[in-house]
């Protein structure tokens, strides 16, 4: 039976809790209710209140307590109800968790899970993609899976990792994406991108829900005999520069695609690295497709205009192929 992206994350956490008695979950409405998105459904019954810790509405305390517990040898998985509310725990993440090892050698083995992304009519405070803030914070790891396989394998790696990991789950993928998963335990390494689709004419470097936007564009272009390669970054920090550069060297044309807004987004960072390290392989300028520099609007036509879509990718791809 195929497993959804949502169920894959749930299974990943569940199996880690079975494997390691130090793993526990902390967050809002995660007990009886099973979490706003049901990631922790059934966990309270199975693991009990000691390991499924329901909290008041206190993101800063959730992250802070996770840090403290992590330093005492536990392996906390903290849930933000929406990624948009991660701002309320920002100081704990970027100043406390991220800087312990560098300053005084302490491990902070926490995972902060954050359901992110638009396309669900959530409006400005239930749709954001705040990954770039954390990518700009040395000491953190930042993960953005796009498939059920990766979501499960990466959440396991995140839990086993000894550094603080921010795990962005794209809400629009929760129930939309599914696949058969292996029966046996597996992990997906942090920091490794994956070629989601092989191609030779143009590379799209992307992650999260945008992988599927790129895929739709690729299917369309295939009909015209154009072969698009899609690189799914999977981890944004540390970035897998090798896989990106390899793809660029192969196709010589590249689009960086993300749902996060344009200015200061991860696309700019990757463009710079391509410019520094693969300039002579390029046949065309490096292009970015991202949301415009605005908050995420609520009204359907506005949100549609805001989000990158296959049409926008096709336009940019054709422009690049014309070089």
């Amino acid at each position: 039976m195929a497993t959804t992206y949502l169920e894959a994350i749930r299974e990943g956490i569940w199996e880690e809790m079975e494997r390691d008695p130090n793993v526990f979950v902390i967050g809002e409405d995660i007990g009886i209710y099973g979490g706003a998105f049901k990631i922790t459904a059934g966990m309270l019954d199975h693991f009990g209140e000691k390991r499924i810790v329901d909290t008041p509405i206190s993101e800063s305390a959730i992250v802070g307590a996770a840090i403290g517990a992590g330093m005492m040898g536990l392996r906390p998985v903290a849930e933000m109800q929406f990624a948009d509310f991660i701002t309320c725990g920002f100081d704990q993440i970027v100043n406390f968790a991220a800087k312990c090892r560098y300053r005084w050698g302490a491990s902070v083995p926490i995972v902060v899970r954050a359901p992110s992304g638009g396309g669900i009519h959530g409006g400005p405070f239930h749709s954001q993609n705040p990954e770039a803030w954390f990518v700009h914070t040395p000491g953190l790891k930042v993960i953005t899976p796009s498939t059920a396989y990766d979501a499960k394998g990466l959440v396991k790696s995140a839990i086993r990792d000894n550094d603080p990991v921010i795990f962005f789950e794209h809400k629009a993928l929760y129930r939309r994406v599914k696949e058969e998963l292996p029966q046996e335990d597996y992990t997906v390494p942090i920091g490794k991108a994956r070629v989601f689709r092989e191609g030779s004419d143009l590379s799209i470097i992307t992650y999260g829900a945008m992988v599927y936007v790129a895929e739709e564009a690729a299917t369309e272009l295939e009909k015209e005999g154009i072969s698009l390669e899609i690189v799914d970054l999977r981890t944004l920090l540390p970035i897998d520069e090798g896989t990106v550069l390899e793809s660029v060297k192969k196709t010589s044309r590249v689009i960086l695609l993300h749902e996060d807004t344009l200015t200061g987004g991860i696309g700019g960072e990757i463009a710079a690295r391509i410019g520094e390290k693969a300039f002579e392989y390029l046949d065309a300028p490096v292009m970015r497709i991202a949301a415009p520099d605005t908050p995420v609007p609520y009204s359907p036509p506005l949100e549609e205009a805001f989000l990158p879509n296959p049409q926008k990718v096709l336009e940019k791809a054709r422009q690049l192929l014309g070089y």
Partner: protein
Amino acid sequence: MAAVKSLLTGNPAIAAEEPGTEAGLALRAFHYMTLMREVEDRIERKLYRQGKILGGVYVGRGQEAICIGAGLAVEPEDVLFPSHRDLGLYFIRGIHPRQVFAQYMGRVGGITRGKDGNMHMGDLSLHIVAIISAMAASVPVAAGAAMALRYKGSRNVALCFFGDGATSRGDWHEGLNLAAVQKAPVVYICNNNQYAYSTPLSKQMRCENVADRAPGYGIPGHIVDGNDVLAVNATVKRAIEHARAGLGPSLIECKSFRMTGHSAHDAASYVPEHLWAEWAQKDPILRLRSRILAEGWAEEQDLDRITGQIRSEVEEAVEWAENSPYPDPSEVLNNVYEQSIEGK
């Protein structure tokens, strides 16, 4: 108050009442509470289920007495910071149900022209500040607004609303403490509806009452029956006088119950059955109705006429909103800044 008058003049039962009397207050409250209930029922139980509203829907069913009792205690230029369950405040300030339906449906006729949805709406010309989603974020903002009102020599105050769950946020504590230290003219009003999403009060705080937190900040705390609109009104009035007199902020806890799921998608099966039945008995609109009849402030048919009028107003408003166009996609880029920085 021009907008309020215009809403009421069509209503003989209310127009007949002297402003400032308890009867007048009760009838105005009845009007607004019924309006809020009818509009929200339409939103939650019809438009949302018909798929005409996409996205979150949070209503104040069963808690109407809180925002309306408070809203009828303020002057038009007192600054309001509604929470996501305080729709009635907007009506008191003259917002039309048409604009609210259009807001929920993401239409141009909505208060934010489709930029945001549901209760995320404000209008500084009406002295209403829009919430952000993050609970309690308005609490320090209201402290600052109140400090500014005093700074400018205004006699106006700020009223800031939030739920029981919001009081667990750091912003809440920082905001209350700052307001207290500054003696800011602000009244903090908690709708204690006993739940924060699925989380019952006992998992939110160890103190029995939200108001118990007030002494920790050195400010007065009051507990009031949040389903008794006249009691809410009287308590808020006292706290406003306290603030206007330069004596600083107060915290008012209105005990009530959320007679619905957290949002339209939530069946709230975590709420014990008996609580629904118990609190249905205490419905604030039914209670006000009985009180009005018992006091002889109006006759049964007067109240039915108010309700009937509101229902047709709601019908018309829904139709208006459905005919309001969606914003043009190009509007996505508007108003990020006062002056566009496009191309700079």
